[in-house]
């Protein structure tokens, strides 16, 4: 257990640190908790906003105001495309590492996690399309 003197020294030292200061370093740290980003709803990601709006409009047969179901189906479709790209990246990493069977267990785990997201997206899309 730390002595009182050590505790005071630790607290004083901690006050000197305020974490990363540069924008680049803060940006890197922001990504530390991010694995594949699939837990973030695709509809809230600005990178996909335009594609979702365009696809929802297509599903609403060009109507200016896309229906709620068209938007839901579009979001799920974009989610599916995103998941497939991530899966391809995981396979790419496996091949880059020499496609050794020893790396396959890791790949299997990652693919199993992706599969759950994919199943949900497929189900969301199917339901939304039927309600169109």
């Amino acid at each position, binding site marked *: 257990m730390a002595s009182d003197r050590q505790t005071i020294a630790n607290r004083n030292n901690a006050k000197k640190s305020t974490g990363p200061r540069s924008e680049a370093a803060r940006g890197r740290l922001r990504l530390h908790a991010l694995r594949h980003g699939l837990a973030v709803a695709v509809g809230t990601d600005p990178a996909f906003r335009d594609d979702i709006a365009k696809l929802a409009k297509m599903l609403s047969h060009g109507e200016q105001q896309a229906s709620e179901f068209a938007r839901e189906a579009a979001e799920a479709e974009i989610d*599916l495309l995103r998941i*497939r790209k991530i899966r391809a990246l995981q396979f790419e990493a496996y091949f880059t590492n020499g496609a050794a*069977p020893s790396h396959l267990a890791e790949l299997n785990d990652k693919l199993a996690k992706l599969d759950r997201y994919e199943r949900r997206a497929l189900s969301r899309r199917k339901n939304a399309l039927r309600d169109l």
Partner: protein
Amino acid sequence: MSHTPSEISVYKPANEFIQILGKPALVGSEKLEDYERTFYSVASAIEPTDVIGCMLTKDVTDWSWEMRRERIIKAAIIKHYQKEVVAELLPLLATPGQLGATTYRIFQADDDLADWAINPETRAEINAALAAKGHNESSILAQAYMRGGTQIDAIDRRIASYERRRNTALKEAGYWNERLLRRLEQAAPEVIEGEFTEAAE
């Protein structure tokens, strides 16, 4: 996606939709031409008439593609373990006596193994020699399956899951396309699938 004139006459999704889909998610040495060939084969079987049909066409294509990818990996895994088994058995082919086996292992076994993997004639010769020692091809393959069992099982389960999803997408396409639905009702799904499976695998 690029189009050839004959393919355009079969099916042409809106450019805006193609832009949203982006480039197909290919891996390693997979070729865009092969993917597109699969896509258009699926499209000619499904005959999509609207954006929903296009989405389901893409689904069926992607599931077929994923199955193809997994089968290639599975074949590579089996070959890896077959090679491992053969590597362990090769010293049996050395001249009798401890010195012969050791010398063989040091100087020639690696070359023979490499040759076994790529040269069908050497492979046949070594397989015949190993069979004479009681290790035929089937037993080597069985040992390879046992060693890679966990990985092979995971791949097989994924292939089965992709196949189910592909069939679901096909049925869903039938829900949206009366003509396809009639064909699905008249023919076994395998027949419809057979129209594009060859292009994919």
